[in-house]
């Protein structure tokens, strides 16, 4: 099986090449088959690999040396262990469903763009696989950059719309800011211990001072902030809605945003050594979770709500990472992948039915027109709200329990966020599916359930959202925490928190109760008379996302622009240009003078050579004097 490992990323790459190069000549069905087929094949291999890892443990597979400079050797190697094999399953599995869904969703595009779309999608999966499989930070960085690039390409897929291009650019730039942190962390590691292999780095933690560890982990975390959309680098993710809906599902559920979680989980040994960073991660995560949830309450675009809910759920995961519940975070990544993919694809189905209408104020009462979408969407909403026995309950509970053990305040804010989550999700559900239809007659006329290529992924994901939680039932509910046991070789610094069963029951009870209350309020409030007017007062602040974009514009973009024009007009024109031109003139002048030496007369040349020989002999005789002269003055 190990011989096949390289196929997992290679297949999507091949798919990318075929679809990318032959996009003009292949028919749509062939493109779709190739695009989805390679992912399915990768999924099958991943599945086999997963069971192999489960039975016989992980390993590192070396291919060749990517960089071999003096003492720094960076191999091209894959690390297949419990953590990466689990992520492989999520990426290829959900990725495949999204590809399948896309085949129908994107069918209106022309052949060329259809091929381009699948090529990008395959490249995206390839990059993500590289990120997860790499056995060192440099390979991870390749994947890291790759997903950044692909997100840019996909968000700006409809590049004729300028706003979409701005959104793509925004995503790219925000990611680049984070990437800088990541890069600096990698350089720091190379400078300190001269290696970036996970195993070597984690074995050499004693060579780091505690300041080193804190710096490296914070820098890595900055990278994660960019990729996983945490405060302050989160604003790109909601704008990333500009891309086709399946792309949003891919970015939000299976790939990209989970990269940061994966990276920190992978580096759990480093993070556990720095108390400061852990607190920072937890607080940033918590703040993001709450902040994004408040924004989500007042959004009217169906995808925007889901986007902010992703940001919020990611905040949850970081809270888990910050309090040392790495398995909990990974578990939440997994369940979140199920229900968020489900919700996005469901939203896509709705948008498809509504002819690209995304404003939910113009929907309502879709329950009877889209039965499958409705049911599956409802499942997703319940799952994300954390109602037992749906999957979200288990993963959320695990994080909350760990947060309580660390600090009850964390737990309190977490539960409040959970209530907000339940509230805005059911606001979304009620506004969209319940009540009366508010769209135009034409839209009403065309309302229809999506084709089976779109509903099958929904059904599969809904099933997973329901049962996904049972992979890791905590002991207090009579389970075995199987995921914990499975991941324990890869996550060695998990914080085990001991709480009495009664406390845990109480915590669960409170969070479930709060969620249920929020759901009841939301359904009551929005099913009959949804909010159709523009928001007023504080709600307006929320609707405008706390004016964060405007804030960034004023404190970063505008000063940078004026600084840029200062540099351009004053420093560059006067200073640099003058200097550069001066050097150019000097070179030109000396070239003209030196050229005179080249007289073309052999006698002259030989004369110069003789003079040079005399000088060289003189240098040789007086070498001691010259050297001591140089040592004295330099």
């Amino acid at each position: 099986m190990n011989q096949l490992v390289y196929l997992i990323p290679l297949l999507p790459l091949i798919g990318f090449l075929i679809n990318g190069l032959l996009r003009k000549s292949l028919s749509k069905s062939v493109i779709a088959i190739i695009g989805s087929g390679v992912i399915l094949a990768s999924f099958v291999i991943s599945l086999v690999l997963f069971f192999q890892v489960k039975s016989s443990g992980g390993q590192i597979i070396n291919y060749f040396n990517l960089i071999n400079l003096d003492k720094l050797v960076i191999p091209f190697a894959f690390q297949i262990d419990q953590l990466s094999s689990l992520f492989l399953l999520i990426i290829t599995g959900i990725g495949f469903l999204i590809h399948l869904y896309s085949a129908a969703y994107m069918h209106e595009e022309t052949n060329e763009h259809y091929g381009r779309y699948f090529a990008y999608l395959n490249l995206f999966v390839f990059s993500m696989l590289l990120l997860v499989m790499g056995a060192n930070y440099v390979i991870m960085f390749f994947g890291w950059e790759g997903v950044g690039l692909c997100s840019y390409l996909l968000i700006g897929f409809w590049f004729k719309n300028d706003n979409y291009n701005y959104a793509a650019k925004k995503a790219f730039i925000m990611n680049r800011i984070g990437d800088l942190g990541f890069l600096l962390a990698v350089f720091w590691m190379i400078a300190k211990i001269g290696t970036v292999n996970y195993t070597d780095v984690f074995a050499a933690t004693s060579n780091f001072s505690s300041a080193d560890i804190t710096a490296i982990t914070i820098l890595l975390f900055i990278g994660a902030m960019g990729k996983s959309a945490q405060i302050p680098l989160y604003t790109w993710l909601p704008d990333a809605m500009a891309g086709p809906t399946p792309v949003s599902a891919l970015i939000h559920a299976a790939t990209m945003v989970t990269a940061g979680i994966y990276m920190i989980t992978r580096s759990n040994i480093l993070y556990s050594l720095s108390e400061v960073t852990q607190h920072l991660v937890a607080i940033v995560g918590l703040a993001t979770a709450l902040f994004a949830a408040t924004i989500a309450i007042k959004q009217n675009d169906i995808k925007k709500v889901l986007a902010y809910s992703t940001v919020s759920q990611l905040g949850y995961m970081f809270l888990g990472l910050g309090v040392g519940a790495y398995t909990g975070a990974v578990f939440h990544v997994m369940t979140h992948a199920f229900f968020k993919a489900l919700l996005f694809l469901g939203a896509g189905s709705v948008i498809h039915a509504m002819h690209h209408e995304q404003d939910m104020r113009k929907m309502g009462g879709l329950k009877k027109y889209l039965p499958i979408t409705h049911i599956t969407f409802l499942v997703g909403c319940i799952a994300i709200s954390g109602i037992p026995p749906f999957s979200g309950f288990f993963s959320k509970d695990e994080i909350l329990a760990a947060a309580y053990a660390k600090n009850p305040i964390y737990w309190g804010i977490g539960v409040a966020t959970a209530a907000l989550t339940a509230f805005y999700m059911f606001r979304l559900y009620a506004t969209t599916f319940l009540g009366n239809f508010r769209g135009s007659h034409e839209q009403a006329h065309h309302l229809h359930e999506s084709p089976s290529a779109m509903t099958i992924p929904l059904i599969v994901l809904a099933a997973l959202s329901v049962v996904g939680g049972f992979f890791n039932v905590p002991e207090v509910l009579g389970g075995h925490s199987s995921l914990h046991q499975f991941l324990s070789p890869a996550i060695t610094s998990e914080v085990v928190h001991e709480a009495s069963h009664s406390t845990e029951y109480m915590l669960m009870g409170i969070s479930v109760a709060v969620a249920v209350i929020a759901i009841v309020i939301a359904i009551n409030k929005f099913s009959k008379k949804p909010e159709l007017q523009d928001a007023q007062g504080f709600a307006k602040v929320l609707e405008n996302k706390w004016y964060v974009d405007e804030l960034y514009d004023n404190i970063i973009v505008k000063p940078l622009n004026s600084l840029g024009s200062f540099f351009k007009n004053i420093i560059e024109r006067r200073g640099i240009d003058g200097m550069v031109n001066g050097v150019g003139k000097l070179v030109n002048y000396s070239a003209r003078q030196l050229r005179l030496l080249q007289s073309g007369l052999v006698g002259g040349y030989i004369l110069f050579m003789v003079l040079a020989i005399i000088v060289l002999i003189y240098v040789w005789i007086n070498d001691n004097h010259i050297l001591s002269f140089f040592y004295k003055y330099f």
Partner: protein
Amino acid sequence: MAITEIIFWFLSALAVISAIMVVLSKSPVHSVLWLIAVFFAISGHYVLLNAQFIAIVNIIVYAGAIMVLFLFVLMLMNLNKETEPQKNLWMKLTGVVSGGCLLIILISLVRQATEIKGKIAVTKTGDIGLIKVLGKELFSSYVVPFEISSVLFLSAMIGAVVIGKKD
């Protein structure tokens, strides 16, 4: 002063003066004749070092064959004063000065060389210059360079033909 020493100084003076005359002579034919004198003086040194073979070869090849060739070429080209290119006086002067500097530096350096200070040349003794010993050396230890030098001559010959033959 032993007779060897007298001959050594005489030959050395002859060689140096003749060499200077080679450069100074206005007529190319005279230069060639002076050059022949230089070769003879050097051959005399070889004899002093008991290297008769090299002495003879030097006379036959250089003083004989090559110099005669030179003379023929010069006569065929019929060089005379009118065709002699005018040279810049400054150029000449700097040439003399820099060449002189080099000479002085080299002489002073070699005089300081401790490794040969106080040593005198081995004259009249030693058999390394004899034809028999030389032949043995040449065809045993130095056989590879000896053979490979044929490539050098071959390419020089081809070159002469390529350049010299009329198209």
